[in-house]
């Protein structure tokens, strides 16, 4: 019954609130974003294609998208694990650790960039232990992975945590009472409930990583064809006053962003409607 009812028609202020929302949205977001597409269309397809598929640019896509996918995967695995530990187990300092998970949201990317570079450099706190193992992090693609894992870290934890908390313990008890061992209970009962949230979180982390700039440029070394991410290439083109080139790459990135946004919405819709 309530389902059919419009939320109400007695509260005032809809026109004012909606009018301001649309005005501000258009001014800040819609018009500027539309402008970049119009600009590209005006410059012509062939020039766009030439820039967007030049070898140095393609190498940067490979790095940005490839390493972002690896970072999303790492966050999918460790994020799920961290969410599990934070929800199910008790240990000293748990609340502090839980609060610290949001650090990548709160810490400015430039600060994260210089700090990760220092820590993972050959002389750094962590880098010095990796060096004897032959692992070089800073100024290699591995460094890009570290930075992108850092900035995507909270997403999976924060999407999985509430689902895990709402998971009915009775279902697990039921599985156990039916003779399932702990591992069977996990992969047959718990994991199927969690993975849509984990996938959504990993996609969010991927979307964030693809566009990331500040935390990567310090640790990556920015060598063309090797450790140069796509956003950096846009900045480089701008510094050379190659506006058309920068715009062409930006359009590719924007289309990727829109596709990811759409995918995330679909994922969220799907995980919300799944099994109901």
């Amino acid at each position, binding site marked *: *019954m309530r389902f*059919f*009812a*419009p939320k*109400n*028609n*007695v509260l005032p202020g809809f026109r004012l609130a909606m009018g301001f929302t649309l005005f501000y949205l258009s001014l800040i977001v819609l018009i500027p974003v539309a402008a970049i597409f119009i600009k590209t269309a005006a410059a012509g397809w062939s020039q766009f294609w030439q820039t967007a598929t030049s070898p140095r640019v393609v190498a940067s896509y490979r790095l940005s998208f490839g390493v972002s996918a690896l970072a999303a995967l790492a966050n999918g695995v460790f994020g799920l694990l961290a969410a599990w530990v934070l929800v199910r187990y008790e240990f000293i300092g748990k609340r502090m650790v839980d609060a610290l998970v949001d650090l990548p949201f709160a810490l400015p990317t430039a600060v994260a960039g210089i700090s990760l570079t220092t820590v993972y450099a050959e002389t750094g706190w962590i880098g010095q232990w990796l060096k004897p193992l032959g692992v070089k992090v800073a100024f290699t693609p591995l460094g890009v992975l570290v930075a992108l894992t850092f900035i995507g870290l909270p997403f999976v934890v924060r999407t999985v945590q509430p689902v895990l908390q709402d998971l009915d313990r009775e279902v697990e008890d039921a599985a156990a009472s039916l003779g399932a061992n702990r591992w069977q209970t996990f992969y047959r009962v718990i994991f199927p409930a969690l993975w849509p949230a984990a996938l959504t979180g990993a996609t969010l982390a991927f979307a964030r990583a693809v566009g990331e700039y500040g935390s990567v440029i310090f640790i990556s070394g920015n060598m063309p064809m090797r450790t140069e991410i796509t956003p950096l290439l846009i900045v480089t083109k701008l510094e050379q006053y190659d506006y058309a080139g920068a715009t062409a790459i930006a359009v590719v990135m924007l289309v990727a962003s829109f596709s990811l946004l759409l995918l995330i919405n679909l994922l969220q819709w799907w995980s919300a409607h799944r099994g109901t």
Partner: protein
Amino acid sequence: MSIEVRDVHKTFGTFAALKGVSLKIQSGELMALLGPSGSGKTTLLRIIAGLETPDDGSGDILFHGENVAALRAAARHVGFVFQHYALFRHMTVFENIAFGLRVRPRRNRPSNDAIRGKVASLLKLVQLENFAGRYPSQLSGGQRQRVALARALAVEPRVLLLDEPFGSLDAKVRKELRAWIRRLHDEIHITSVFVTHDQDEALEVADRVAVMNEGAIEQIGTPEEVYDQPASAFVYQFLGNVNIFEGRIRNGRLRIGCLELPVSSPESADNQPARAYVRPHDIELARIVAGEGVRRGTVQHIHTAGPIVRVGVRTFDGSQTIEVEIAREKHQELDLRVGNVVYYRMRHSQIFVEDYSI
């Protein structure tokens, strides 16, 4: 202050919530809108309050003869008690009750002393004198309900509207609050309408009951009227347990197997399928054949529920099991066991010709 609703329609998308409802509530009356989920009772209440508007061009709402259909909710001066109370969770009980007075335009606003006095008298009325400083989260369900009532009464509304006032309470509190609301109404005599899906609640508390189904009113009457003379099969079924016997009308009598019942309703045509509705307590049981219209059956189960005993009797032809309610003493007197042969007789029944429109 009387309330009159004239031919109100309300559609949500493709769903017709109200299909031309008319209703008249006398001044000082306590009226219940009773019906199952989706029957349109809450929508009707919200339309009376002005929280919902009827479909364009349909219907009028009159308060004491004055058409208020065009007035906004705030201008109608109604007291509305929401199903989940909608108490302002960040305000104390005192501030909740005082809210309606504090938001008045300055020229109509009572002084702080007057507000304090008014709130104190309302707190006394709802028996929460010692709870003025509490927050809603620190109250029980029944206490919240009474705060919501006091808050609605603080603005001295012309009518009081309550949406499922007991719906969110547990069984014991619900019973207490019912009796209390009835007493409160007898004391302050404000025209009141409440919505409920619980027939006991409606029959016990209200002066009159409007039974609603699928967006229309099936019957309006006193609790005795709707219970004893249901106007439709729906009302009969909704207001309590019922045994249904299917049969056919022949020569002004309903034939059910070899049992015949007199048909009172004149419109019933010959040779039509019809159903007899019989309440479980309107069936008599006996161990021996005595009198007219007695049928034979076997006891199938016996459940004791407090002062009454529910006996399931399988009809002789085995076609159905009828539910019979008898007093505990009667049960002891009969000394029934499962498998015993019993004789049953309908003391009272009502016949409805089957509705072909379904």
